[in-house]
C-alpha cells in the first residue's frame, strides 16, 4: 500500500470541514481510496478544528498516523499537529495572517503562501480554502481541473460565476506554489482495479442507509453529537419510503416511541450517544420483557457524563451489555467497518423481529463521522426477516380468544406475534411479568416459564457476526479488539508480522450473545494477547475474562484521551507486551 496524509486546520467556523470534504471527494472521484477524520470541539466558533485525509491506492480503514501536507490557518494548528508531520512534510501557511514556526529540528518545509491575498483576488477571502486546495494540488502534482466536478456539485446552485471563481482560486493557489516552491510529494499510484461502486460514505450515513434498507420506517430520536447525522440522513430519505422521523422531546420519549411503533408492526429505531443511551435503560427492559423488537444505535462518544462530546471512545460497552435493571435477552452488534455499519443496522431489524428482542448497534464517533472510500455495500448479505408472525389466516383458524401471544411452550422460546388491527389476535404487551396473553401474573411457575422462554430465544442465535481471526491461525500472540478498531489493528498486525512476530488478530463484531466457543477456539494456544480498546478500564478484556477466562494471557492497551488510536501507539504497547527478542 502507498499512502499520503493531508490535513487542514484552523478555527471552528472557518470552513475547515468543507475544505477537507471537497478535497476528499475530489480524490475519491479520481479513484483513490480516502479515509477522513474530523477533529472538532464542543463549541460553535473559535477552538481548533482540523480535517485529516489519508489517501491510498487501496482500501484504508484508518486515518493514518502521519501528515505529509499540512495546511495551517493558524499557529495552533501547527502546535497541535506537528507531532504527526512526516519527515519532509510540507506545511502551508499564510504569512500575512501569522508568522508560523515549527519546533526546532523538525524536518519539514514551511511554505508561506498568501492564501487570503490570492483568494481576495479570485473573488473573496472565504475562498482561501480553495486556494489551499490548489496549493495542495501543486505539492502533489494534481491537475487543478480535476476539482471542477466537485466545485460544480458544491457551488453549482450558486451560479456559474461562483463556480468559476472557486476554480480560479484553486488554479491560482496551484500556480503560486508552483512558481515559488519546488518541494513535491508524490501521490500514491492510482488504484489499478476500481470497483464499480467506489463509494464515499461515513459510518453514520451507512447506518442510516442500513436502517432504511433493513426496513426501518420510523426513527424517533433526539439530537446528540455524534449521532444526529443518522437522523439527518433519514430525514432526507425516509419520507420517500412513506416513513417518518420524529424528533422526540427527549431520549426517553424516543425509545418508547420506537417500542410503540414496533409493537404496531412498523420496524422502528432510535439513534443516540452515551447520555441519551443512559436515559434509555428503563425502556430497554420494557422491550426485553414485552418481547417487542427494538433497534437502538449508540454512536459512542467520550464519556462519562457529558464527557467530551466531540471525541471518540468505546466506553459504552458495559452499559450496552449490562444496562437496565433485571435481566433481558439482548443482541449487541459492534460493526468493524462502515460496510458493517450498513449491514448490521439492516440486519438489526431482522434480528429484532426474529428474536423479538432489543438489538443494540454500537458504533462510535470515529467510525460514525469518518467518511471513507469503500468498494461496495454488501447488500446481498443483508438478513431479511420479519420474524414469526401470525397471519390473518392463522388467527382466524383459532377459536375466538385462543391466541396465546407469549406461548411459553415454544421450544425456541420464540412465539409468533400478532399486530394490532389483526382480528382475533388481541393481547397485551407489557413490562410486568405476564401469562400467555399478556395479563399480569405473579404465580411463580408462570414467571419461571416466561423467564426461561425469554432466555431460550437466543440459545440458538445465528448471525454473520462474532469473532474474526486474521493472520496466523495458531499464532502464540494475538491482538484483540472490537468494533471500529479493526482497521488499525489489521495494520498493527501487518506491522508486527513484518517485524517477525507470529501473530493473529482476533476481532469481535458481536459481543452479545457472546460468541464464546469461537472465542475459546481463537484464544486456544495463545500465550499473550493484547486487548486494544478505547476506554480506561478495559471493558472488552473484562468481558473476555468473564466469558472464557484467559486472565493470565490478556494484557490491556487502553486509550482514552478522546482521539482515535494511532498505529504507533499500538506498536509501542505491543513492544512492552510481546517478547521483545522477536521485535527489533
Amino acid at each position, binding site marked *: 500500500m502507498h499512502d499520503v496524509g493531508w490535513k487542514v486546520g484552523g478555527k471552528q467556523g472557518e470552513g475547515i470541514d468543507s475544505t477537507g470534504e471537497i478535497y476528499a471527494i475530489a480524490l475519491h*472521484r479520481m479513484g483513490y481510496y480516502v479515509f477522513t477524520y474530523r477533529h472538532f470541539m464542543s463549541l460553535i466558533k473559535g477552538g481548533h478544528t482540523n480535517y485529516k485525509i489519508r489517501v491510498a491506492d487501496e482500501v484504508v480503514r484508518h486515518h493514518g498516523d502521519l501528515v505529509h501536507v499540512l495546511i495551517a490557518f493558524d499557529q495552533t494548528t501547527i502546535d497541535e499537529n506537528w507531532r504527526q508531520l512526516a519527515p519532509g512534510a510540507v506545511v502551508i501557511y499564510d504569512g500575512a495572517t501569522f508568522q508560523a514556526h515549527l519546533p526546532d529540528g523538525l524536518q519539514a518545509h514551511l511554505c508561506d503562501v498568501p492564501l487570503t491575498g490570492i483568494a481576495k483576488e479570485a473573488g473573496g477571502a472565504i475562498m482561501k480554502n480553495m486556494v489551499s486546495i490548489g496549493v495542495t494540488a501543486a505539492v502533489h502534482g494534481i491537475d487543478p481541473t480535476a476539482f471542477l466536478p466537485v466545485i460544480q456539485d458544491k457551488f453549482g446552485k450558486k451560479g456559474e460565476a461562483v463556480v468559476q471563481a472557486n476554480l480560479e482560486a484553486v488554479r491560482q493557489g496551484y500556480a503560486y506554489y508552483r512558481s515559488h516552491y519546488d518541494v513535491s510529494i508524490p501521490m500514491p499510484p492510482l488504484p489499478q482495479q476500481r470497483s464499480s*461502486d*467506489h*463509494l*464515499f*460514505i461515513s459510518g453514520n*450515513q451507512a447506518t442510516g*442507509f442500513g436502517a*432504511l*434498507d433493513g*426496513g*426501518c*420506517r*420510523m426513527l*424517533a430520536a433526539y439530537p446528540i453529537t455524534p449521532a444526529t447525522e443518522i437522523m439527518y440522513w433519514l430525514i432526507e*430519505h*425516509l*419520507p*420517500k*419510503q*412513506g*416513513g*417518518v422521523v*420524529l424528533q*422526540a*422531546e*427527549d431520549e*426517553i*420519549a424516543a425509545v*418508547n*416511541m420506537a*417500542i*410503540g*411503533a414496533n*409493537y*404496531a*408492526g*412498523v*420496524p*422502528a429505531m432510535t439513534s443516540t450517544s452515551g447520555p441519551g443511551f443512559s436515559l434509555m435503560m*428503563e425502556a430497554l427492559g*420494557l422491550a426485553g420483557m414485552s418481547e417487542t423488537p427494538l433497534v437502538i444505535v449508540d454512536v459512542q462518544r467520550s464519556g462519562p457524563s457529558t464527557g467530551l462530546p466531540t471525541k471518540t471512545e468505546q466506553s459504552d460497552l458495559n452499559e450496552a451489555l449490562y444496562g437496565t435493571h433485571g435481566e433481558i435477552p439482548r443482541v449487541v452488534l459492534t460493526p468493524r467497518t462502515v460496510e458493517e455499519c450498513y449491514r448490521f443496522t439492516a440486519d438489526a431489524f431482522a434480528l429484532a423481529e426474529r428474536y423479538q428482542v432489543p438489538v443494540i448497534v454500537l458504533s462510535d464517533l470515529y467510525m460514525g463521522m469518518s467518511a471513507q472510500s469503500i468498494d461496495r*455495500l454488501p*447488500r446481498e448479505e443483508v438478513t431479511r426477516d420479519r420474524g414469526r408472525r401470525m397471519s390473518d389466516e392463522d388467527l382466524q383458524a383459532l377459536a375466538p380468544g385462543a391466541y396465546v401471544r407469549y406461548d411459553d411452550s415454544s421450544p425456541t422460546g420464540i412465539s409468533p406475534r400478532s*399486530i*394490532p*388491527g*389483526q*382480528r382475533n*389476535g*388481541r*393481547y*397485551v*404487551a*407489557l*413490562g*410486568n411479568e405476564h401469562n400467555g396473553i*399478556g*395479563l*399480569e401474573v405473579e404465580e411463580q411457575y408462570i414467571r419461571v416459564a416466561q423467564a426461561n422462554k425469554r432466555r431460550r430465544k437466543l440459545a440458538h442465535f445465528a448471525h454473520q457476526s462474532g469473532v474474526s481471526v486474521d493472520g496466523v491461525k495458531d499464532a502464540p500472540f494475538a491482538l484483540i479488539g472490537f468494533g471500529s478498531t479493526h482497521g488499525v489493528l489489521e495494520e498493527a498486525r501487518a506491522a508486527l508480522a513484518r517485524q517477525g512476530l507470529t501473530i493473529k488478530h482476533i476481532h469481535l463484531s458481536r459481543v452479545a450473545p457472546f460468541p464464546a466457543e469461537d472465542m475459546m477456539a481463537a484464544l486456544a494456544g495463545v500465550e499473550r494477547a493484547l486487548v486494544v480498546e478505547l476506554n480506561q478500564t478495559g471493558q472488552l478484556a473484562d468481558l473476555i475474562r468473564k466469558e472464557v477466562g484467559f486472565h493470565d494471557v490478556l494484557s490491556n492497551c487502553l486509550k482514552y484521551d478522546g482521539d482515535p488510536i494511532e498505529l504507533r501507539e499500538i506498536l509501542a504497547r505491543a513492544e512492552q507486551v510481546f517478547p521483545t527478542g522477536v521485535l527489533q
Partner: protein
Amino acid sequence: MSTMKDFKAEKPTWCPGCGDFGVLNAMQRAAVALGLEPEDVVVVSGIGCSGKMSQHFGGYGLHSLHGRSLPTAQAVKLANRNLTVFAAGGDGDGYGIGMGHFIHAIRRNIDITYIVMDNHIYGLTTGQASPTSDVGSQTKTSPRGTVERPIEPLQLALSERCGFVAQAFSGDTKHMAQVIERAVRHRGFSLVNVFSPCVTFNKVNSYEFYKEKLVNLDADPAYDCHDRLAAMRRVAEADNLVVGVVYEDTEQPAYDDAVYGYPEEPLAHLEPRLSDAMYEEILATFR
C-alpha cells in the same frame, strides 16, 4: 357491530368501588357508540392502578412504563393511522413523571385520545401525594400536608392550544362516554381528565365531594367551548371543578396531516422494502 361484551376482558382487579370501573365502562360505551371493532382499538397505559386499563379494556393493549404511555401511544398511532389509540393512566403517571411528554404530546397533536384517571393520589403504591393533590393533602408522603400547588391539567392543555380539552367524572359514566366519544372523533390530540375517586386511599376527593361541586359545562347553553381564553377563565373561576368539553378547536391540522411524506395507507401495512431502483439512486449519492 360490536357490543359492550366485545370490549370486555378479564375481570378487573381494581378495589370495589374504584372510579376506574366507571372509566372502563365509559370507554367501552364510547367504543360501541363509535362503531369500533375491538381489534382496531389500542389502549396504551402507564403504570398505576389506572395503568391496568390496557389489560381490562378488550382491545389490543400496551402496558408501557410509568409515565411513558404518551410517547408510546403516539408512535402506535403513527405506525397505523387506522387504529383508534387511547393513552390512559393516572395523575401521577401523566402529570408527575410523565409531565414532559404530556406537554409535548399536545404540541405534536397526533390524533390520539388521552384519558387521565385523576384520583389525586398514587393508588397502586398505596397512597402517596400526587401532583394533583390539593395543597394541604395528608398522605403517606405528606403526613403534615402537601405544600406544592397542584397541577392544573386543563389550564396547561389550554395554554398549549390543545385542540380538545375535556373533563369527566366517574360518577357519571353516561356523560363520560359522550365526552370520550367526542374526544375520539376529534382529529388531533384530545385530553379527557377524569375525576376517578380512589376509594381506598383518598377519602377527601370522593364521589360525594365531586357530586356536590361539579358543574357540567355541556349542560350550560351559554358556554362557548370554542373560546380558548374564556375557557381558561371559566376553569379558573370554577376552581377546575367542571366537567364536559371545555374547549375544542377543529382548525389545527393533526401531526399526521401536516408532516411531510406521511402516507395515506397505514405505515404498518406497507411492506418495508427498498426497491432496487431506489437503492441505486441512493447509492449514487455516495459516488
